[in-house]
């Protein structure tokens, strides 16, 4: 398979002509069975893509090479750096101001804990605000928790942890009620009015029932709006914006005891000491694994995985990433940004450079992405200005359902505008974009990692989605497990105050790296993507 950005294919003008000439697009006959398609074209299956981890609690586990390099690196902070650093105290420290972090902070604060919420950028700068399609919950009369459970397991190729999935789906209806109480809006079914009625439900890819609830095509933004307000109004939460966590702290019993934060405004370390710590740092898209562009926000650099792993937490399925089928391929400046699955869910077709459909657009994401990559690799893609992709037939959708673009695919229409095209007249050029880390830190049903004092929630965790996440389950997860982790953290934190906090785990970690002959020169977490040109070592110097 060639690099995803390879430009060979059918020139854009010719492809447009083929698409126009063959509407509605005929299906292409030469379909591959899903297993073979995945084996040959999914980026995770490329030889050399995965390496076994050599140190840590999950030594031996296959891991994406780019991530393994970060996981097996030395810390950014030294014990000396934190001598003289200001110390903040809390019952619960929540790291990450996306959806999972906000929900955990709110839950812990409402349980009476004093909460410190530290985030890398501003509150809400996260993957959560970017979620478009919606959130799953088995609410329909024909649906059931059992079906949601089975759909999730199947979509994840049966690699998910059943206890976690059971917790996820059974929390579903309660999560929606909770979100409505927090003030989040949801689309209502035709015929409902504002004072009552039914939630609009759609069928997400890979599901057996209409279960996807949404707010237009900016569900995550609406969710974050409500959560953000709640957090800002909660008396028990102290918010620290622009305070990325650089390392977790331990106490003298090896419990997680908070974190070393870096105050960006002053370029100095700040210690946050806490009885319990909830890690909710989200995903890893900005690692650009396999050279893919990403749909993820700027801060998605796998920091949480690095921090937790160094402290002894186990990971799982870190060799499994989700490439969303429809990232923008052109214009290049918008490469990787997501065109919502809602387009396909509503009926938009994928069309190759020959004007043909080549996949069931509602198949699971891994299969659809692999099919697109195959078209590109085999020369049937569309080439434009050095970018290759396939068409997402939004004009065809608009023809079939007049008015849909303006009414419910608002974000898509806005994206098209920014790309300088009219979505009703011209198809988008799309190709898979690095979207989601299916795996992450192994947790139990209350969000506990294996490390005492450390809980995790949201995209940073693994086990809920197996090897492929269903659309709509991530938003459900972040609320369900944000609540679980927040409650568990508040209950645990009051047991005992951490003493002798420090970085004692680093010596053991370095010994392990040395024993494996791994270099100590590489430092992690990344905090910002390399093109951010942010040098932590230099920035720290500013403190003086």
């Amino acid at each position, binding site marked *: 398979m060639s690099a995803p950005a390879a430009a060979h294919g059918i020139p854009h003008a010719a492809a447009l002509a083929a698409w126009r000439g063959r509407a509605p697009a005929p299906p292409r006959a030469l379909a591959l069975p899903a297993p073979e398609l995945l084996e040959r074209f999914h980026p995770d299956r490329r030889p050399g893509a995965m390496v076994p981890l050599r140190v840590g609690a999950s030594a031996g586990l296959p891991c994406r090479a780019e991530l393994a390099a970060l996981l097996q690196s030395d810390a950014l902070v030294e014990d*000396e750096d934190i*001598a003289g650093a200001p110390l903040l105290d809390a019952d619960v420290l929540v790291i990450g101001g996306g959806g999972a972090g906000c929900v955990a902070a709110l839950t812990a604060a409402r349980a009476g804990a004093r909460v410190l919420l530290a985030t890398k950028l501003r509150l809400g700068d996260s993957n959560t605000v970017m979620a478009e399609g919606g959130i799953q919950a088995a609410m329909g009369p024909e649906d059931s928790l059992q079906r949601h459970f089975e759909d999730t397991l199947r979509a994840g190729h049966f690699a998910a942890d059943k206890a976690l999935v059971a917790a996820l789906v059974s929390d579903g209806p309660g999560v929606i009620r909770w979100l409505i109480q927090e003030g989040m809006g949801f689309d209502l079914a035709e015929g409902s009015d504002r004072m009552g009625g039914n939630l609009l439900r759609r069928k997400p890819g890979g599901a057996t029932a209409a279960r996807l609830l949404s707010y237009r095509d900016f569900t995550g933004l609406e969710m974050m709006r409500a959560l953000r307000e709640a957090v800002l109004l909660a008396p028990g939460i102290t918010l620290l914006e622009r305070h990325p966590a650089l390392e977790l702290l331990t106490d003298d019993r090896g419990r997680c005891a908070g974190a070393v934060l870096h105050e960006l405004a002053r370029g100095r370390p700040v210690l946050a000491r806490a009885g319990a710590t909830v890690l909710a740092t989200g995903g890893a898209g900005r690692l650009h694994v396999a050279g893919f562009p990403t749909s993820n926000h700027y801060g998605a650099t796998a920091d949480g995985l690095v921090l937790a792993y160094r402290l002894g937490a186990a990971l799982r399925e870190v060799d499994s990433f989700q490439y969303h089928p429809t990232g923008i391929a052109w214009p290049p400046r918008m490469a990787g940004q997501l065109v919502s699955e809602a387009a396909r869910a509503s009926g938009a077709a994928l069309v190759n450079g020959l004007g043909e459909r080549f996949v069931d657009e509602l198949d699971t994401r891994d299969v659809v992405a692999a099919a697109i990559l195959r078209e590109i690799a085999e020369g049937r893609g569309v080439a434009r200005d050095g970018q290759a992709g396939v068409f997402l037939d939004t004009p065809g959708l608009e023809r079939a359902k007049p008015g849909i673009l303006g009414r419910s695919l608002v974000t898509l229409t806005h994206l098209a505008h920014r790309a300088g095209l009219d979505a009703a007249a011209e198809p988008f050029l799309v190709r898979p974009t690095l979207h989601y880390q299916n795996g992450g830190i192994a947790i139990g049903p209350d969000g506990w990692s294996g490390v005492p004092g450390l809980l995790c929630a949201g995209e940073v965790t693994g086990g809920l989605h197996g090897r492929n996440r269903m659309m709509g389950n991530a938003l459900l997860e972040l609320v369900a497990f944000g609540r679980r982790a927040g409650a568990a953290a508040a209950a645990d934190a009051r047991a005992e105050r951490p003493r002798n906090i420090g970085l004692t785990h680093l010596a053991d970690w370095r010994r392990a790296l*040395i024993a494996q002959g791994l270099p100590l020169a590489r430092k992690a977490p990344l905090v910002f993507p390399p093109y951010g040109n942010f040098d932590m070592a230099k920035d720290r110097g500013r403190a003086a």
Partner: protein
Amino acid sequence: MRVLTDERRCVGADLGAWMAAGGGAGLERALADRGGIIPAIEAAGLRGLGGAGFATHRKWAAVAAQPGPGKWVICNGNEDEPGTFKDRFLLSRTPHQVIEGALVAALAVGAADIVLYINPREAAAVAVAREAVAQWEAHPLLARLAGALGEAPRLRVVTGSGLYIGGEETAAVASVMGGFPFPRLKPPFPAESGVGDAPTLVNNVETLAHAGHILAQGPEWYRGLGLGGAPGTKLFSLSGDVLRPGLHELPMGTTLRSLVFGHGGGVLAGRAFKAVFTGGPSNTLLTAADLDVPLDFDSLRARGSRLGTGAMIVVGEGTSILRKTAEYVAFFAANSCGQCPPCKIGTHQVSRILERVEAGAGRPGDLRALENLAGLLPGSGRCGLVDGAATVLASSLRTFRGEYERALGPSGQEDGQEDGQGDGQGDRLRGGGLRGGAP
């Protein structure tokens, strides 16, 4: 050469295996020539390895000189300070070595009550020692010891409070008697008045473990184990920023360089060597200038430091001396028993100041307050606890003053008078000069 940690001697509670590995010979020799025990210990040059380094034969002779019966031997296995982990190894992996030494001591001083006094937090050590003690019950050597003593020896395990202070010898005595481990004023030393006012020999686990071998193989052999005139071997509890931390049994008199860079594999990640806290950690820091100092009692004394328990906590570049000092002083403060106000209040005062300096909230005058306290506190408690805290504080202030200054920042360094607390406290402390410390 490894003696105490020789793999063949690590037989656990199995007495048969211990005897098969050459055990029992020391006690045999002692029984054959009771009067020769103390001279042999003296000739070997054995000194206490519980921290104070007091000549073992003098302690034994002192207890032996007291009238019997009713005397006691306490084998001190309270071991609780940061960075020391040797006694728990001996008790859990090779307990008969310790018991045999204790029986030799009992014979030498004429004591029939022999207590293995163990920290209850070391559950494995307690369990193995209990099992080991039970196995001696019917052993013929014990019957012969009874014959020599004129009564049956009562060998048992007593778990203490688990508190650090319980390791101080008079506190250990109080603990064995079932009381709270309060140290008391000395003299009288336990050798005159210990358990139930009876003469009591208190020795460290490692000290006693050596005694059996000295009897079995002779003082000459023992002296030959050490380097540069220092006798025997020593267990070093090596920890901190080294590649290979752990328990290293090395000749007494091995240099610090050889311990850290040879046996310890060097400073972790090839960093520069900064200092070593010696166990403790209640002694003057050893720095790069001390790397070639032989690690034995006299050489370290001559450098103004102490061997202590042989715990060596290595600090490499990147690790803060200030933070470590704060941690250890906090440990001492938390473990002060509260009988002597200067100790209780003084260690807490130091700890509070260190904590705020460490947290970037130091105030002008803090540095001076710390220096004052470091000068005032030594000798103000009945046991050595406060001395240890003051020593490590003073040493870090002297050698790594820059770290304190950096943490205080420009504002914290001005020599202001705002914080009268330290000084005022010092005035009150001046009145409490009680002399104490182990013999």
